[in-house]
């Protein structure tokens, strides 16, 4: 167990190092940063001095390790566009993105599993057929289109829900403002979180349904039926757990992409999160911000993967190595 954990953490660190290298090399591709920092009149000597002071004359590996060292401490330099430390800007905007991702993640996972199980158990019901057909819309329509359609119907025509922004927010701590405590905050969350979560919801639902149907065909379910085990127990105790094993991986990755792909939804709904900031950063070639964002998303994925691995370990007894050796 401990050995497995250490191995996984080392793997995660390796992945982060590779991503760090990629985001470090972003700096090398967009010309000389000195040009952006000094005025037109700066002399060749001033430039050389500044270059020396910023350590840009050091060998690349040393520069890279300095970058990693700073990143570990949460130092990503100053945003070109906003002239403020990148870490501050991200910390300020991250709550909005996390709240959005959390709500759509919960929505996608709970409804995805629930509807998946329902459509698997009531295979031939009209409601199942309806859900399955409409889920095709979810997997095939692009996110921005869903967002725009929702805005058109619920904000423009029906005028029930706001079309942009977070609504009223409450400051919890210095950096953390939440929209989860106000009515208008929740109202503002509904459309973006549906937009963001719909694809993952339908994907999970179809996956759960397929897995569940597969599991219901297995011998151990047949044997459980032959022993007269109650229908309810067969579905939810014997089958569901086996169904969810392969689903955990996908669900984890989907949760990661909800955070990463919040960019589009945030743009459509002008949601003041890091994704929206990232789009603006690209426009202004704000390299420090972009590299920090890249690292952040990689970190989210790596952590989720680590959690998924641990979950597997907790759920599937076959992965646990017992002290008592399996006797043949």
């Amino acid at each position, binding site marked *: 167990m401990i050995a497995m954990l250490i191995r996984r953490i080392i793997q995660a660190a390796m992945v982060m190092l590779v991503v760090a290298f990629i985001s470090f090399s972003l700096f090398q591709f967009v010309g000389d940063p000195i040009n952006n920092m000094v005025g037109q009149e700066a002399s060749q000597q001033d430039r050389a001095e500044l270059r020396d002071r910023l350590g840009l004359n050091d060998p690349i590996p040393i520069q890279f390790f300095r970058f990693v060292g700073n990143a570990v401490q949460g130092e990503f330099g100053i945003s070109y566009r906003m002239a403020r430390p990148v870490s501050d800007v991200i910390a300020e905007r991250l709550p909005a993105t996390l709240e959005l991702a959390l709500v759509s993640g919960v929505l996608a996972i709970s409804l995805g599993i629930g509807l998946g199980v329902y459509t698997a158990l009531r295979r031939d019901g009209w409601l199942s057929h309806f859900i399955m057909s409409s889920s095709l819309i979810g997997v095939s329509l692009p996110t921005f289109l869903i967002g725009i359609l929702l805005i058109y119907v619920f904000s423009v025509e029906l005028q029930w829900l706001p079309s942009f922004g977070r609504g009223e927010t409450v400051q919890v701590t210095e950096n953390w403002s939440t929209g989860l405590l106000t009515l208008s905050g929740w109202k503002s969350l509904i459309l973006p979180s549906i937009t963001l979560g719909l694809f993952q919801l339908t994907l999970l639902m179809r996956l759960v349904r397929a897995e569940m149907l597969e599991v219901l065909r*297995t*011998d*151990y379910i*047949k*044997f*459980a*039926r*032959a*022993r*007269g*085990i*109650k*229908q309810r*127990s067969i579905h939810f*105790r*014997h089958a569901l*757990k*086996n169904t969810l*094993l392969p689903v955990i991986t996908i669900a984890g990755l989907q949760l990661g992409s909800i955070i990463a792909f919040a960019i589009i939804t945030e743009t459509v709904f002008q949601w003041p999160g890091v994704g929206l900031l990232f789009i603006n950063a690209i426009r202004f070639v704000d390299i420090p911000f972009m590299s920090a964002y890249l690292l952040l998303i990689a970190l989210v994925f790596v952590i989720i993967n680590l959690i998924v691995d641990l979950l597997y370990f907790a*759920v*599937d*007894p*076959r992965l646990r190595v*017992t002290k*008592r050796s*399996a*006797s*043949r």
Partner: protein
Amino acid sequence: MTEPLLSVRDLVVEFPKRKTRLTALDHVTFDIYPGEILGMVGESGAGKSLTGAAIIGLLEPPGHIAAGEIWLKEQRIDKLPYEQMRRLRGKRIAMIFQDPLTSLNPILTIADQLIETLQTHLPLSDKDARARAIQLLDEVGIPAASKRIDDYPHQFSGGMRQRVVIALALAGEPELIIADEPTTALDVSVQAQIIDVLKRMCHDYGTAVMLVTHDMGVIAEACDRVAVMYAGRIAEIGDVRQIVKDPQHPYTQGLMGSIPSLTERVDRLVQIPGSMPRLDAIPAGCAFNPRCTQQFDRCKQQRPDLIKTKKGQVACWLYDGESS
């Protein structure tokens, strides 16, 4: 003779297929008496397993019972509603499947599965159910049962898992166990042990067994009576010694002749020419007639029902008029 425990009367199982339908079991009739072991033999696809599935009410749709009756003592069970049938499963009729590696739920411990089964059918407290579960495991020959009960299926070998499966099937103390090729997936050395456990347990609990197999060794070793199936019909039923030593139906004769003997060395084993017909191409008359060496005109026109002879029951026109 005592009253039969299970009576299957003219059972017909069909699979609808576009415009036509396939008749997988065609007027199957037989009895199982309390405490006996009835062997079911036949080639793959003869309908042995299907008969078992039909009796316990677990036919896979779209397969369904189209006609006939199944009686468990004085209760008719082929038309019971789901909930009543569920209560009966495991309590009065249990079933064992072929592959012990896939018959147990991989993420529940043996204790979870046994205790749940026990408590489904018997009014036992958690503590009593656990004690009974350990006792059952002990009886089927799991060493250190009180420790192994909390293990997961993957921690057991194939033979041990089949013992667990037998314990699970016997948990509700059923009157009949349908064992669908319980030893086919096991090593030869383990097969005999499992058959032995099954025989001993069923003897101790007075449970009747319908033993589906195509292994004639198992039949000779374990069964009291044997039913031979061919193309969804019963070709012959009789006492195990009679079937093995003195088979009547030409198909059974061929089947027995094709078994190699350890004591006698023969140059060639007898083969039955051809293969069993597909369900959608069963010939008129006796289903076996195209492969039969002793067929005559009537075999191609009229279908033989089971005829009672001095030795047993056989569906073959050769014995018409011999009926006793």
